[in-house]
């Protein structure tokens, strides 16, 4: 019987060690922390024309401090906009209702995140609230398109002015030529 006591002790210690490791992994390596479902939170929605490649789980920050995460992304087929659901930490519950949410890029080519700039209202956002002022993502292709369009436009302008100058020069030169040839044939 003594044998089974050390046996049970050994098994118990092993199982305890294993669960401690699991606990460590789930709490100390993730941002979840020690709470069961993550820190207490409330949900806010914001609608955007274009969210770029914003992903679920992307951070939501104010003044560079992370205050929440993107929880869900859906499409509103009535307004033809992207509806983004934000999960904000309860600790940051004094966000004015007229704040605006914009989509930024981390670094130069990093992932997208949402930045909230505080407004000036006296009322604060609550659970199931909505941010009305939004700015869509910066889409690189559009910028390149714009640059190209600008570039070709300015080139076309240059060409036009060059052509106009050329045409003017031609018309100036031409009477001379004519005169010259006229003179020649005379």
């Amino acid at each position, binding site marked *: 019987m003594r044998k089974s006591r050390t046996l049970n002790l050994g098994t118990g210690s092993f199982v305890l060690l*294993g669960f401690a490791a699991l606990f460590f992994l789930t709490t100390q390596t993730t941002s979840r922390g020690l709470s069961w479902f993550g820190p207490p939170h409330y949900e806010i929605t914001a609608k955007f024309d274009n969210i770029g490649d914003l992903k679920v789980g992307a951070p939501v920050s104010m003044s560079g401090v992370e205050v929440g995460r993107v929880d869900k992304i859906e499409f509103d087929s009535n307004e033809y906009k992207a509806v983004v659901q934000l999960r904000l930490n309860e600790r940051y519950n004094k966000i004015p209702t007229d704040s605006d949410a914009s989509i930024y890029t981390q670094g130069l080519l990093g992932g997208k995140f949402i930045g909230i700039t505080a407004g000036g209202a006296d009322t604060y956002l609550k659970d199931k609230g909505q941010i009305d002022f939004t700015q869509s993502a910066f889409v690189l292709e559009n910028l390149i398109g714009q640059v190209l369009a600008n570039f070709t436009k300015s080139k076309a302008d240059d060409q036009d002015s060059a052509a106009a100058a050329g045409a003017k020069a031609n018309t100036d030169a031409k009477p001379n030529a004519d005169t010259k040839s006229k003179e020649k044939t005379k």
Partner: protein
Amino acid sequence: MFKELWESFTDALEGLGSVVHFLFRLLVHSPPALLRFSLISQQIFNSGAFSLVIIMLSGLFVGMVLGLQGFQLLQRFGSEEALGTAATIGLVKELGPVVTALLFAGRAGTALASELGLMRATDQISAMEMMAVDPIQRVVVPRFLGGVISMPLLAAIFSVIGIYGAQLVGVQIMGVDSGSFWSQMRSAVGLSDITEGIVKSIAFGIACSLIAVYQGYYATPTAEGVGRATTRTVVTSAVVILFLDYLITAAFL
């Protein structure tokens, strides 16, 4: 030639069916076996606690290598601070479950197979049947459940020690900032990663334990039969582990 191919194909199918049938038998007998938890407890000790040393050692070394290699690789992109993230994700999602399962198959799996094979060879299983004791319930199921329970715990311990090994090399030796190591990890690693690792180790546990007890129980009752059973355990377990690894990784994507 085709006839032989077909025969080995049907043999393999038959074997697969036999294993699945065995699994059902084990599952059916699990609830009553759980009532006699002391048997299972003993098997958890045999499978788990005894494997602890090799798992911890391996975890440490794998973590340290991960730290070294990860640092070198990330240095090329100027992202050394991401070492914590890289090591944790690599360990928790892949190396932890897979390496632990392979080591488990080698150490605990072969022990299970040879124990059962020996019991079969020395008529102990027949003797139990004669004494109206169901050997599946009394001998096989506790060993199976012992393995299934031990595996996720072992994988978790492996990952944790691995992370510390990576930290040892990355922070203490290579000079990565300790704060960045942990903070970047915390923000990048999510619960779904950990869950994926746990699901994998449970699946591997079921697979390895099943293969080990099946090979042992149905081993030819001779010395070489037992030997064959142990080698087959390791080989089959390894292939199944790697195959399941791909399946589960793809499923979680």
